[in-house]
């Protein structure tokens, strides 16, 4: 994991990770890094635990949405429309009445346009850069709906997917999700839920296979993995007793069981 923030690097160093700093590069490399580290923000530890756990939940949801929402939409509308409530089905049918393209073409068109706008927003001079991103997306979407090229529901799907990808703190993790979702769109189009389930299985297998300096990437993902300090759930500050057990640190305990002794004296 790479970071430009000194506070993030120091936090991980104190947690027992290894930091690599190279002269001339603004980034510090943190290793080993597991999946949940990419969904955490350095500010989480400074917030109340309930707030940071809520935000973490939102980010996990955002990761799922970014990866799977377009694929699921294509799969449901192509093979599994009985899943939709009848009124929603009719809303989708109504919105697609005048659209000349099949769903897969529509969704690929809008996803690629969104990526184009995002990339263009980076290169446009800074006074108008952010505006181009927002206005471009809005105007493009609205114009496309008015022209009858895409359906309004698809704009909502693409917008939610895009917003989900922005909610992920780590840039490289978000990027990999943005790329992989095209694979899931294709799988959803080919074989519906079967394609997505098989794709998800292979994707999870490769995620689990990945190791970060000897540590399994998805360590602690299953609740049955009894890993202390795994970062999935942030306990209150007085309960953060252990460092991550997979780091095999010299001092596994970072604070005593009752850390707020001043309360009981």
């Amino acid at each position, binding site marked *: 994991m790479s970071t430009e923030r000194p506070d993030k690097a120091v936090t991980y160093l104190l947690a027992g990770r290894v930091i690599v700093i190279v002269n001339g590069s603004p980034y510090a490399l943190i290793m080993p890094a597991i999946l949940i580290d990419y969904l955490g923000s350095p500010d989480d530890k400074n917030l109340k635990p309930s707030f940071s756990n809520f935000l973490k939940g939102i980010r996990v949801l955002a990761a799922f949405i970014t990866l799977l929402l377009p694929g699921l939409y294509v799969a449901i509308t192509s093979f599994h429309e009985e899943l939709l409530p009848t009124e929603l089905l009719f809303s989708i049918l109504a919105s697609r009445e005048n659209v000349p393209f099949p769903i897969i073409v529509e969704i690929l068109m809008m996803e690629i346009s969104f990526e184009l706008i995002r990339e263009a927003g980076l290169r446009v001079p800074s006074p108008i850069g952010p505006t181009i991103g927002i206005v471009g997306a809005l105007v493009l979407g609205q114009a496309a709906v008015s022209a009858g090229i895409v359906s309004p529901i698809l704009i909502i799907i693409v917008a939610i997917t895009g917003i989900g990808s922005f909610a992920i703190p780590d840039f490289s993790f978000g990027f990999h999700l943005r790329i992989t979702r095209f694979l899931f769109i294709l799988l959803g189009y080919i074989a519906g839920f079967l394609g997505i389930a098989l794709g998800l*299985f292979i994707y999870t297998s490769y995620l689990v296979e990945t190791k970060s300096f000897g540590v399994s990437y998805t360590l602690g993902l*299953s609740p049955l993995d009894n890993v202390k300090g795994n970062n999935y759930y942030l306990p209150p500050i007085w309960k953060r007793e252990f460092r991550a057990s997979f780091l095999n640190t010299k001092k596994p305990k970072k604070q005593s069981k009752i850390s707020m002794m001043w309360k009981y004296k």
Partner: protein
Amino acid sequence: MIKSKFTTVEAIMLVLTIFLTPSILSMPKNLIDTTRSSILINIVYVTIIAIFIAILIYRLLKNFPSYDIIDISEYLGGKCFKSIIGTIFILYFLISSSILLRNFCECLKMVYYPMTSVVFIILAFIIATCLSSKLEFSTAVKVNVIVLPLLVISVLFIFFANIKNFSFENVFPILGEGVYNTFIIGLGNLGAFLGIIILYFLPPYLKKPEDMKKIAITTTIIAGIYILFCVSIILFMFRFLLNVDEVMPLYYTTRYIEFGDFFQRLESFFLFIWILVLTSFVTINIKLSMDIFKKLTNAKNISPMVYSFGLIIFAIAIFPKDYAVSKFIESTLYSYWTFGISFALGIGILIFANLKKRKNAHLPKQKEVLEANE
């Protein structure tokens, strides 16, 4: 030499996959067919017997620490016997995967892909399992730890979501088809615990071999409770299923789940979970077969064998002409055949190996006594 080592939890999940996956197909209905309304009593009875069998297997394996049944068969009958037994078990794993895969794909075709040939649906599964089987065994087991709890949660969800449709009076008459059918013929329902076969292969994979007893008993109890839930759902909801054959009884029950007007027809989500579980099951079977094959041939690199095993599963899966034939194979032939392998063959080998070991242990003592007398 087996590289992958699993923790106790991973081993329990691994064994449970083999136990629980057939329940998504017609296993619950086959269980109910023999005993009718006394199925609940029968499952409790059969679970207790299965626990004793699991303990027996543990006791027999205890004398051969870190040996699996292939190593024990080599000890018993030499390399030739080892090859025979290894081949039988490889065939068992491959055929059981193929039959389950075929039946599940037939159901998927019926529901979602009526115009697509079942060959392509099976091919999709085979490609996915081959890709995931190319990775390490520990990967497959770790993925299984993520995927299998979803199966258990899905069945529990079906149970509690359908509770308003239950008629608990369906448990009467309490003795079903009679005492003889419930307790003697009902012994055939031990077929629900054919997954016990995986216990024969577990010892070399365990990080903590001393947990083998705990694993054996825990998995059998959890499997018994899970199967009890599965058959309860069908018995309490559809007494008519006793008279009508249904393709996937659990799938049929998911069609009745509704929460108000918005959440209806949720069966696609359950099929999504069951696809993941079945893929995990086939992957694990292929990995086990590869490990057995490696033991038999002492090959250095067997990863290309993934494609061969995948092809064999594919060939066996497309072999039955239609669904009726594959269902017959699943409910009749496969159950009796695997009964023989799981219980008769496996326990037989262990018993004879233990006897041989005891005889060999006495022989040095006799030799010492003879020398002392001289």
